[in-house]
């Protein structure tokens, strides 16, 4: 049973560029949440997708956007990258958008130069 997978594992971008991160949920899960973990910090909630719609959003600017596909996989897009966007981006999947226990993938480490 495959767990949550994310790609790529590492990414280096320069300021102003755009980036797309991808996530495949655990088998049987229908909800995907994205978190940003800066170095030395706890993860911060970005947003959550269920039935291909954004259901919850944290305190992140509109530069952060996402998408969920019919097969429940998801993408996180970040436009106009800033140095401060350098972080580990974690995807979590669950069954049901408000009550499911969230299981995390290995993350994508983004470095913005």
């Amino acid at each position, binding site marked *: 049973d495959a767990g*949550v997978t*994310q790609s790529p594992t590492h990414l280096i971008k320069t300021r102003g560029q755009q980036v797309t991160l991808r996530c495949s949920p655990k088998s049987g899960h229908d*909800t995907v*949440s994205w*978190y940003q973990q800066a170095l*030395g*910090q*706890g*993860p*911060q*909630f970005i947003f*959550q997708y269920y039935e291909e719609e954004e*259901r*919850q959003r*944290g305190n992140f600017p509109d530069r952060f956007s996402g998408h969920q596909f019919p097969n429940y996989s998801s993408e996180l897009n970040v436009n106009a990258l800033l140095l401060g966007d350098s972080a580990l981006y*974690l995807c*979590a999947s669950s069954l049901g*958008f*408000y*009550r499911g*226990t*969230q*299981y*995390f*993938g*290995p*993350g994508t480490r983004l470095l913005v130069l």
Partner: protein
Amino acid sequence: AQSVTQLDSQVPVFEEAPVELRCNYSSSVSVYLFWYVQYPNQGLQLLLKYLSGSTLVESINGFEAEFNKSQTSFHLRKPSVHISDTAEYFCAVSASAGGTSYGKLTFGQGTILTVHP
């Protein structure tokens, strides 16, 4: 909204000694509580969770945590630690019903547990 405070940023301990990692939370609604563990350069792994029922929950590798509603705490304990328990531990909370925090996890800042031989 919820908030989580992990009272110790680092906890050093010797192998086979007991350990307690402290977590306090604040919430205006009922909550679910979680402990996740993160090994270096990896994602988060669910260690244990409290959803309802017995306030004492256990993991398969010997950790336990007790939900104390009056103290708003969910401390993590292990009676005898191993070198392999060295990792960062995160306490997290989510609203159990309704409100703008429904469905999202709010994490503490993490506690780095270092087990020395």
